[in-house]
């Protein structure tokens, strides 16, 4: 990183925190601090919802996913517009009219305390774990790239988030997110344009797309149905719909966003904005990943992308032979790619795919010898090595603040649930001022928790990150089932739905233990399990009470 890049990075971080502090001023009542006084316009809520989802990991791993696995991950987002339409028609007006601060507060109004407590506990466990990971995962990658100690990176990011979230509450979080989304979008477009412009002069944009297609990277829609396949059209449209219904309909980190709307219509528009914008945005991010893949066909990539693993590898006895094989495999693939551009014949295509397999095999061997997986460093490596001065600092700053945006949303929602669903029940007579103070204290607590959790355990997360990404699917299905009953099945009471939630959770554990079904389907299993068990119980108890009479 050059001095200009450092200046851009620091300036962006300072601007963002200051802007958050400035926009969050006046958040001195509970309604202001937790719901922004219900004054938010749709575009601010919509961009904030998008920013909370667009974490640093999204940029680092989504581009890498396209590089290694192609663009099929975009199918995961096909369920999002469906979910947004359903939630706009149901959850948005219900939550608004119930005048609640949290989604779980509504459950006590509809059922009873124990159901509210159960779902609150599930949220705090799941989101609490998530906040530590959301901080740790990008901090690991950024600390390697910036050369900072991991714990320093964690503390810098965590402290900046606590500063503006504690001061300005959700208003600060939302308006900071708006700025972030604007710069995130601009820098992604810029990175894509630069990647295309850096291709050799005799390789056109269409040639690049053709090569990506030849390598199987443009597998955007896959129509074959397979229960065990994570990303295809059907798991996206059905399995992911359930995940998004649960995420946007029952997870306070999202519900709180659209509860800040000045009207039901504004809240609906914020969700429908995401329904329209999210799929093309993910397509764009994945497409940048494929362009980076094509870029590295013509410009030789490092043997491994992880800088520390690269250094380790260089000290190993296997290194010279590996590097030499890698060089040969790279040259062969480059020539084969030119063959694809010039000839378009099946033979040229076969040669390219064979050369690609050969290069992949040498790379996999190098990663094994280097001892560190390098997938998450592909995009970062491209940014730091090839983007112009200043832009490197901007893109790294954006990745930094994308992480901060996700964390701020999480600790803000954790604090809200802690205050509304726990503190307010212990101290129902608390004044507005005491509630705001408790909210600020809870924000500091959850921020500090995320920092400590990340600093202590973050570096051991290598494989855990994947597992934690799936944790949501273990919990979201049952939460969705509970809210489905709450909204649509009036005759089912609290006890039936409480037992149903436990049954739904057990159903997911059984499916994950005894089958190989992809995790997106857990959401369907969990929701269906809760609904079926609660309806059966309700029916049985009603028959019993009728028989008693």
């Amino acid at each position: 990183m050059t001095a200009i890049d450092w200046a851009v990075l620091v300036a962006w971080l300072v601007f963002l925190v200051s802007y958050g502090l400035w926009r969050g001023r006046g958040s001195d009542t509970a309604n202001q601090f937790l719901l922004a006084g219900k004054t938010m316009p749709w575009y601010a809520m919509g961009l904030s919802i998008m920013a909370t989802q667009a974490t640093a990991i999204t940029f680092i791993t989504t581009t890498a996913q396209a590089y290694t696995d192609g663009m099929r991950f975009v199918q995961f987002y096909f369920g999002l517009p469906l979910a947004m339409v359903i939630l706009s028609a149901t959850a948005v007006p219900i939550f608004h009219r119930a005048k609640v601060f949290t989604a779980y507060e509504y459950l006590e109004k509809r059922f009873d305390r124990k159901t509210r407590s159960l779902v609150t506990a599930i949220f705090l466990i799941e989101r609490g774990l998530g906040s530590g990971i959301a901080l740790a995962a990008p901090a690991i990658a950024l600390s390697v790239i910036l050369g900072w100690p991991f714990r320093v990176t964690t503390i810098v990011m965590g402290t900046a988030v606590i500063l503006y979230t504690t001061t300005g509450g959700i208003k600060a979080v939302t308006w900071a997110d708006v700025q972030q989304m604007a710069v995130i979008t601009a820098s992604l477009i810029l990175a894509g344009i630069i990647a295309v412009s850096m291709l050799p002069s005799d390789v056109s944009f269409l040639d690049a797309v053709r090569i990506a297609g030849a390598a199987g990277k443009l597998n955007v829609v896959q129509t074959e149905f397979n229960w065990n396949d994570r990303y295809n059209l059907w798991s996206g449209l059905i399995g992911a719909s359930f995940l998004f219904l649960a995420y946007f309909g029952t997870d306070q980190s999202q519900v709180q966003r659209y509860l800040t709307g000045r009207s039901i219509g504004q809240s609906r528009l914020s969700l429908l904005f995401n329904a329209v914008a999210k799929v093309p945005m993910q397509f764009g991010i994945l497409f940048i990943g494929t362009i980076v893949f094509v870029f590295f066909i013509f410009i030789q990539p490092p043997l491994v992308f992880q800088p520390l693993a690269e250094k380790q590898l260089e000290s190993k006895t296997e290194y010279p032979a590996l590097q030499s094989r890698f060089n040969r495999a790279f040259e062969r693939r480059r020539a084969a790619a030119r063959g694809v551009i010039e000839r378009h014949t099946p033979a040229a295509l076969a040669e390219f795919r064979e050369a690609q397999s050969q290069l992949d095999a040498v790379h996999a061997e190098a990663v094994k010898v280097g001892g560190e997986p390098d997938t998450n460093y592909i995009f970062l490596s491209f940014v730091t090595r090839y983007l112009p001065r200043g832009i490197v600092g901007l893109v790294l700053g954006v990745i930094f603040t994308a992480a901060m945006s996700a964390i701020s949303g999480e600790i803000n929602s954790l604090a809200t649930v802690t205050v509304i669903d726990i503190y307010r029940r212990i101290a129902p007579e608390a004044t507005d001022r005491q509630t705001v103070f408790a909210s600020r204290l809870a924000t500091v607590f959850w921020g500090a928790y995320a920092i400590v959790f990340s600093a202590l355990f973050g570096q051991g997360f290598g494989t855990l990150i994947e597992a934690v990404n799936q944790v949501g699917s273990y919990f979201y299905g049952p939460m969705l089932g509970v809210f489905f009953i709450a909204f649509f099945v009036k005759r089912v009471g609290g006890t039936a739905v409480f037992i149903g939630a436990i049954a739904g959770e057990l159903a997911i554990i059984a499916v994950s233990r005894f089958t190989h079904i992809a995790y997106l389907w857990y959401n369907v299993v969990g929701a269906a399990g809760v609904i079926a068990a609660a309806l059966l119980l309700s029916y049985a108890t009603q028959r019993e009470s009728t028989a008693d009479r």
Partner: protein
Amino acid sequence: MPDEAHNIPDEPPPILGTWPRIYTAVLIYLAAIITLFFAFTRAFAP
């Protein structure tokens, strides 16, 4: 409890007149974008 909560008004959407029409438009958009992506996949399949 905080007291600034006021009645939340519902309102018609800025375009197309009713919310169900907006929802239908979003679903048509989704179908169109999947079709477009499918055509893209087929056009550049290896």
